[in-house]
């Protein structure tokens, strides 16, 4: 293989291990999505809650901020102490890192809803729940989706590192590459799909965001 350029080696690796790459790609993607999904399930209601109780907002966003500042490798190690090696540790880490963008954006989205619109909704006899799903959520949908997009981009990066705790994913291929002599092509075979995944999922979510955002004009 020594006579081949890195690029040729890259294609060679792909041709022989395509299925494996695809497997890791899917695995990688699912780990990230699960983490973000759980974060959305927790973060969106939390964001709604702190938009209602302003006193809580500083504390909650403060905690999420602190989490964000911990280096991901350190975080993985800490969680590994509790959850051991494997996928769960990575999903938990992704979950924690995704919380901040999701909570923050949900909070901002809710804050951004025109107070007059809320007032007239309440004045017309909407229940709190009706105000939430008829007014607040549709109007903050776009901002919340922005948070989820952000979270997913971060998540894909963290999942790549997650290979260190034995979760698999494209990071696994990268590590193989670093361990092999002359493994540049293998590293690329892991890194390029990771980058591609980031770009595609961001574009895709952006598309969904635009499609599902409620119309405000024709």
């Amino acid at each position, binding site marked *: 293989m020594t006579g081949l350029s890195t690029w040729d080696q890259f294609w060679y690796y792909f041709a022989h291990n395509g299925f494996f790459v695809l497997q890791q790609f899917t695995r990688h993607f699912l780990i990230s999505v699960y983490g973000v999904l759980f974060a959305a399930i927790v973060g969106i209601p939390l964001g709604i809650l702190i938009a209602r109780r302003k006193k809580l907002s500083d504390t909650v966003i403060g905690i999420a901020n602190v989490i964000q500042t911990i280096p991901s490798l350190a975080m993985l190690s800490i969680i590994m102490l509790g959850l051991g090696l494997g996928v769960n540790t990575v999903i938990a880490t992704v979950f924690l890192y995704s919380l901040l963008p999701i909570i923050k954006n949900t909070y901002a989205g809710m804050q951004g809803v025109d107070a007059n619109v809320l007032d007239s909704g309440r*004045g017309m006899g909407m229940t709190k729940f009706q105000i939430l799903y008829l007014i607040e959520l549709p109007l903050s949908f776009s901002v919340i989706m922005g948070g989820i997009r952000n979270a997913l981009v971060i998540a894909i990066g963290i999942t790549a590192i997650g290979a260190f705790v034995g979760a698999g994913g494209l990071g696994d291929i990268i590590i193989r590459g670093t361990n092999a002599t002359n493994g540049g092509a293998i590293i690329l075979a892991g890194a390029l799909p990771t980058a591609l995944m980031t770009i595609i999922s961001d574009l895709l979510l952006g598309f969904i965001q635009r499609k599902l955002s409620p119309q405000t004009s024709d």
Partner: protein
Amino acid sequence: MAKEEPLLILKDVSKIYKGGNAAISNINLTINKGDFICLIGTSGSGKTTTMRTLNRMIEPTSGEIIYKGQNIHKIDPVKLRKKIGYVIQNIGLIPHMNIYENVTIVPKLLKWPENKKQAKARELIKLVELPENFLERYPAELSGGQQQRIGVIRALAADQDLILMDEPFGALDPITREGLQELVKSLQEDLKKTIVFVTHDMDEALKLATNIVVMDEGKIVQAASPQELLRHPANEFVRKLIGEERMLQARADVTTAAQIMLKDPVSITLGRSLRSAIQLMRERRVDTLLVTDDEDHLKGYIDLESLALDSSNRRATSVSDILNTKIFRITTTTLIRNSADRILKQGLKYVPVVDQNNKLCGIVTRSALVDMVYDIIWGEKNDTAAPTSPALKQGGAQDA
């Protein structure tokens, strides 16, 4: 028929915020069906607070509010609000719903069938003279005035009979504003809606209200009809709020002869003798006497001059012999604004006031007019007019 019970009664309603800051205190107010109530006052006087207690957007700290005989505290706020229209200054149309959806929000919450909602929306959009295809537009695609029209009809969509409006037209230009004022006035007059309307524009309140409630520092200073308010402002604050000029302008516009006339004018009947006429003049210290028949119908006047002329030949014996029938008269309902000019220009000392049947009711003296007209209405523009009027002093005798 028994008097209909009031739509709303506020009894000693207060709202005290943390730190003892009373937004409103001891508000007592009765609102009848079909009333157009304008709450007016300076900023922070508690107008919005008062209005918002009516649909439980604000819960009073104490006192009670009775709506159609029921304490609103016992009515589920969500149910209550669906029965009460609500319009705010910033309109609050929901941006991601089109006009149709916006207008039919309350019907939707009330689960009306689709065809009923459709029919209602069409009926309402016609009411505000907007084309039907506007129903498909989004709020952002309408001008401010058009949006507020939608805001108003949205408050009618579920046939609410009470509508609360908080400075609904504050942000609109004068012409758009006028159109909308006419719209809400017609809602009250033609559709018999009851309207509670917050404003800080006195012209608007005077134009629209059947009752104006003036508020200051969380209390009601005066609650009265526009005419009553203009005629008898309760205190300096109300007077200031109305504005001297507007008050006087409006007063002249509505003041009738009956309101400023002196009752019990000095008069004599046709059949009386000249002797008694002279005696009466001396007693009452006047130089003219109005002459009536036995039923009080005004016939003319006699004055000292004709008496003096007659005294040389002494042919006349009764009042009717020297009666002067050419007399300018006004009726009780004559607006002072319309006749003041004539009275003043002709230099009359006074004019008799009669009712529709020509019965003498009183007199409007020149000095009463001068007081009212020159000093008050035109005094500011032409304040030298009154003192230089020579007829004033001569006519003064009639006032005694």
